[in-house]
């Protein structure tokens, strides 16, 4: 379904276009061999990130123990100072070609330092909101400065978590829904709308992936809340942060899908009024209208399309798994009767299958031409 573009194919086209010299194979191979040694696959990053978090907690306990022993009462102020020392130390350790031990220590030092600063500021102010703001500011600054994908991923999730905390504390209505929408759009903006950002992929890729995870998590949380509480809610506080009506989210994701369809058409020099583009847009509009009560469907379709467009197989896989679980949760949703849900789902399925037949016909005609 998804044929990856190889480095060889890109180099051949670049040579043909005069962008690089014809003898680029040898240095390119050497660079890729070196990269293979330096780069970490995602599961190793998960392991290092998780271990760094746990190590940071132990380091933090050690440092706070020492601080408490020395200062007695003024732990918060000392924690902030300690954090302001640890973070730059971690950044310095990460510069240049660092061995594995140094890289791990850099990650631990930065995370522990940030926790010290956030804890110290929050403790001093005795305010969750102040701690959350400190989290957002420190995470944003460190994500910019600290060239470590695992940290940038975790920092983005920390920013989302802190935003939720602020929303709950301040009783901002629809917090979860707004954040689900924003985090869902970030990957589209970063990977599609702003192609020049590809040059800063080391910064934006982990942020975009974290936003995908956050969006999927928040949409799942909304679905679970709907299943457990339906329209009645549990408490005013909880209902306050959940987006009461899922329609705005569905509209947002559907609009993003339609926009993507027009962008892909533009890239291929196809008019938006061509039958193929109109069919794609039509499917999006009809499915969104039928499943407007379940924004997870349009969100999943958006991520599937984006994953294919940007050749990110992992994104397609995550979106597919998310769609399956969302449909499973929808079965137990209390917002509609089983009968109404069945009609909406069957109609959406029929529309998708009809569109699949249309595109299959188009693919055959294109292959025959």
């Amino acid at each position, binding site marked *: 379904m998804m044929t990856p*573009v190889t480095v060889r194919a*890109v180099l051949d086209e670049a040579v043909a276009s005069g962008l690089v010299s014809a003898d680029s194979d040898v240095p390119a191979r050497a660079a890729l061999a070196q990269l293979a040694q330096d780069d970490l696959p995602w599961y190793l990053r998960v392991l290092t990130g998780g271990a760094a978090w746990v190590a940071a907690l132990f380091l933090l306990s050690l440092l706070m123990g020492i601080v408490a022993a020395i200062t007695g009462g003024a732990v918060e102020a000392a924690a902030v100072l300690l954090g302001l020392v640890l973070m730059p130390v971690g950044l310095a350790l990460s510069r240049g070609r660092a061995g594995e031990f140094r890289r791990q220590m850099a990650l631990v030092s930065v995370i522990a330092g940030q926790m010290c600063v956030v804890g110290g500021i929050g403790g001093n102010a005795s305010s969750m909101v102040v701690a959350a703001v400190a989290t957002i500011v420190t995470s944003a600054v460190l994500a910019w400065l600290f060239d470590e994908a695992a940290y940038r991923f975790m920092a983005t999730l920390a920013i989302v978590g802190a935003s939720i905390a602020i929303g709950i504390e301040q009783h901002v209505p629809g917090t979860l829904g707004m954040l689900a929408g924003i985090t869902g759009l970030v990957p589209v903006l970063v990977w599609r709308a702003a192609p020049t950002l590809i040059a800063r992929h080391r910064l934006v890729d982990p942020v975009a992936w974290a936003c995908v995870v956050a969006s999927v998590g928040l949409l799942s949380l909304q679905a679970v809340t709907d299943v457990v509480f339906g329209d009645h809610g549990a408490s005013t506080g909880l209902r306050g942060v959940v987006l009461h009506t899922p329609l705005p989210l569905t509209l947002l994701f559907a609009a993003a899908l339609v926009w993507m369809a027009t962008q892909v058409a533009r890239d291929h020099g196809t008019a938006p009024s061509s039958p193929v583009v109109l069919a794609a847009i039509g499917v999006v509009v009809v499915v969104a209208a039928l499943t407007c009560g379940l924004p997870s469907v349009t969100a999943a379709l958006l991520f599937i399309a984006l994953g294919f467009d940007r050749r990110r197989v992992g994104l397609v896989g995550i979106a597919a798994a998310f769609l399956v679980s969302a449909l499973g949760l929808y079965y137990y949703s209390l917002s509609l009767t089983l009968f109404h*849900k069945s009609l909406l789902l069957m109609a959406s399925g029929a529309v998708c299958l009809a569109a699949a037949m249309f595109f299959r016909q188009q693919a055959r005609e294109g292959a025959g031409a």
Partner: protein
Amino acid sequence: MNPTATSDPLEAPATATRLTAVLDALAAPLGARAAVLAIGTRTPSVREWRRFLASALLLVGAGLLLSGVVSFFAFNWAALGKLGKFALLAAGVSACALAAMRAPESLASRVLLFAASVLLGALLAVYGQTYQTGADPWGLFGIWALLILPWTLAACFTPLWLLWIALVDLAFGLYVAQVLATPRWDVTTLVGIVAVHVLAVMAWEAQRLRTPPWLTDTWGPRVLVAVTLLPLVMASVVAVGLQELRGDVTGASLGLLTFLVVLFGTFYQFVRRDTFMLTAVAGAVVAVLTVALARPLLELGLFGLLLITALLVGEVAVIVKWLRQPREVSA
């Protein structure tokens, strides 16, 4: 995916990271860099988009339709008579199985066989509900697994294989717990399920040597190994860290985990290197070892905290350095 030591690195997928590394090596000017990155990250061709939309909408549409059908019959279930229920489910199974025969090698055929397998389970459940013979539930899952085995073999579809293994796990677990009901049924269940998973992974590795392999997706055995190791790690952590909660199951888990670490570690290091599997194994060792050493180290107070931090950092550094060594098979 990382380029391999034995295949041409230039045949690796053109990610932004790889292209940037190549452009740095070529000292390409800024304008050329942007253009090359744009070539590598542009949208797939029209033909690829049409094929993708046809396949993706087929799968999504089938999923939505199936969910709708399940909801519809759930709503009307009480109103249907016995024969109506059987007829509907049997018709669904037959329709999916017959439709799958139209284009046996296609993705649609595999999805239809998966749907037929799921519906067959629903049919057996309704049968068991209607004619309550007092039979144990393990029989439902066992017969379900037996009946869908031919389809599982024919489909060459990893999700269907995982479903089949889950059914075998359930049948075995329920049989041991409810029929055998031995005093150590929990340990027997654990050992049996782990054995099933190990055999499944080894069977996958063995079929991989066929030309052509019957199943090529690597995510199937990886999911199986991760799902096997995770509960064992959690129980082992309890065994080594919380002695007051230690029992037969936690002790058995520790023993099984040790066996799996040696088995998978040896196989995926020396026979077919797979860094995902080695990472899973290494992660299990780190988790259990750290908890085992943390308990005595914590008694040293603040110095112990420093040692634990250093231990954790050191463990991960060693693992990453080891797994970064030249590979024969990409992760």
